């Protein structure tokens, strides 16, 4: 296939979910067809993303100038190794959540709304990973956000609506701050193409970034910090994530906060590196506090999904710590951790769904005995939970090892110590879940309605568990790839060349 045609395929990760969503809206009356189409759409998305990934791996960064408008004027779609690996991971998460949702009765009741919105959500996330333009990034962020609003309140229970209001208010605030930051940045630099911004602000010959740029960087940290649920702006997350359907919380846990981290990774390696001591110093401090507050908060929870929500927060800190170090090792660790975390968090929330199905509740005090009654679910939890806690041979071990080694490598003993402490607290939380839910006998006053998870639900979590195991066993090559990505991020010449070169 010629290079021109390969380029055109860059719109596929946006068009496939869009086309699926439109078809799904049209086929809402026939639930079977709708479900089949939805699964087919997301599987096609995965296939295209894997193909794009292999292309980028061999041939370098792919770009498409949309509408053939030359680079800084039009919107550029860019897929480098970071974007490609995240696209693959996100669509894998999408496939598993979709598989899980197929037999979820709560989703079936809302079938008409769930599947189209799911596709819009995937489209927004892919758009964020793929765009090379800051304003376009904002637009995709909003696409993701609007879809997530509706998914969050799907079902319309009281608790959902309440938590949705908080989620909505804080996320609109974050988006507005993001827009303000874009406005000021445009006033300063006169461009919004990220590669062009890098050239105007610090790489080019006439680069002159004023102090205002550092202020804007702060604004971006604030806006993306809310999205990524970083300390002290994470309070919306434990309020929102435990309430929607399990498939929806798993999707959110796997994709939404990670989008914020991706934004930070991209902007703070490509655009805002004029005052690394200030900007990355702030990120470093925020990362440590996030790790501690998230993992400590988890221990105080009495409900499974609340506990996992705090774990989501805590582990955002590990990735941001890697970014805050701003070394090849640190960024490689952050990227590897990001991929690992997307898989693990989705799997954990799906396991919570299995537990709920088996026992009719997620209150830790009313659970027990699942090791005997449902050994399959227990094994799945063990794989995912041990990976979360960072035990070998699962992916979490290597992810955490990479973060700690990176911190030690740059002489940051405090960071390494906090990461290890947070990891210990995570292990405690996992042990607590294992004891309460699986090991100890079922309390006599348990009153939940019992059921059996369907085969599809088990398969969907099983696929994720296999992916986690695979990422752990193949950690050597995966970390090498992460180092290559980190190298690309730290030396953005190739990225800028790819975007602006032929313009």
């Amino acid at each position, binding site marked *: 296939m010629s290079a021109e045609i390969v380029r055109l395929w860059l719109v596929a990760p946006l068009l496939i979910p869009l086309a699926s969503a439109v078809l799904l809206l049209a086929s809402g009356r026939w639930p079977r067809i709708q479900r089949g189409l939805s699964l087919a759409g997301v599987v096609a998305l995965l296939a295209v993303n894997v193909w794009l990934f292999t292309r980028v791996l061999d041939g370098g960064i792919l770009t498409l100038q949309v509408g053939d408008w030359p680079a800084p004027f039009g919107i550029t779609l860019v897929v480098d190794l970071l974007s490609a690996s995240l696209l693959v991971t996100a669509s894998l998460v999408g496939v598993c959540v979709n598989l899980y949702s197929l037999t979820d009765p709560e989703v079936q009741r809302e079938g008409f709304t769930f599947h189209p919105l799911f596709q819009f959500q995937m489209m927004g996330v892919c758009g964020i990973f793929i765009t090379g333009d800051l304003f376009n990034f904002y637009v995709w962020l909003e696409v993701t956000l609007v879809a997530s609003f509706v998914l969050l309140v799907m079902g319309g229970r009281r608790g959902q609506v309440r938590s949705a*209001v908080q989620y909505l*208010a804080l996320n*609109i605030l974050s988006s507005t701050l993001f827009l303000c930051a874009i406005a000021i940045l445009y*006033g300063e630099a006169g461009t919004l193409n990220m590669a062009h911004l890098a050239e105007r602000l610090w790489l080019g010959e006439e680069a002159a970034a004023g102090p205002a740029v550092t202020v804007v960087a702060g604004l971006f940290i604030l806006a993306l910090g809310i999205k990524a649920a970083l300390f002290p702006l994470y309070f919306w997350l434990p309020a929102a994530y435990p309430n929607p359907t399990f498939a929806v919380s798993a999707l959110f846990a796997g994709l939404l906060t990670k989008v914020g981290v991706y934004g930070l990774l991209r902007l703070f390696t490509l655009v805002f590196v004029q005052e690394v001591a200030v900007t990355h110093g702030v990120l470093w401090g925020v990362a440590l506090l996030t790790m501690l507050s998230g993992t400590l908060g988890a221990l105080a929870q009495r*409900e499974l999904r*609340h506990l996992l929500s705090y774990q989501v927060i805590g582990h955002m800190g590990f990735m941001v710590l890697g970014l805050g170090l701003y070394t090849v090792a640190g960024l490689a660790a952050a990227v590897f951790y990001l991929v690992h975390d997307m898989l693990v968090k989705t799997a954990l929330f799906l396991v919570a769904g299995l537990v709920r199905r088996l026992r009719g509740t997620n209150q830790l005090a009313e659970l027990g005995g699942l090791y005997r009654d449902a050994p399959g679910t227990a094994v799945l939890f063990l794989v995912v939970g041990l990976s979360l806690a960072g035990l070998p041979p699962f992916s979490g071990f290597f992810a955490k090892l990479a973060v700690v080694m990176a911190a030690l490598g740059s002489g940051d003993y405090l960071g390494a110590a906090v990461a290890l402490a947070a990891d210990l607290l995570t292990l405690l939380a996992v042990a607590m879940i294992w004891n309460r839910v699986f090991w100890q006998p079922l309390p006599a006053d348990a009153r939940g309605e019992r059921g059996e998870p369907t085969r599809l639900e088990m398969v969907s979590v099983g696929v994720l568990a296999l992916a986690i195991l695979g990422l752990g066993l193949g950690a050597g090559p995966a970390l090498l790839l992460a180092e290559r990505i980190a190298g690309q991020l730290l030396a953005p010449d190739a990225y800028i060349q790819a975007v602006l070169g032929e313009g």
Partner: protein
Amino acid sequence: MQILVAALIGGCFACAFYLLLRRSLQRVLFGLVLLGHGANLLVFTAAGLVRDRVPIIAEGAKQLSDPHPDPLPQALILTAVVINFAITAFALVLAHRSHVLTGFDTLEEEDERSDD
């Protein structure tokens, strides 16, 4: 002119944050609307204000004659306004729903347990 608009944006943000910190859901919503207006005005102003000119290339000319306003922020605002409109509409429906379900117009936590 720039100073005046800047003060206006500041006023928008100040009122918006004051309203956002209120208990009543209605006020929070008004806060979000004002916040959106402030941000749009900021986009409009950040690239510089030029009075009485439109960014349209005159007939026969090859490029815009100076001084001319920057057309890009106007396009950005247009996008942002549409998004804002949609989100505000959704927020209103959500607030209404919340009012119907709970009977309150406030945002307080009552209990930590998600209702199963």
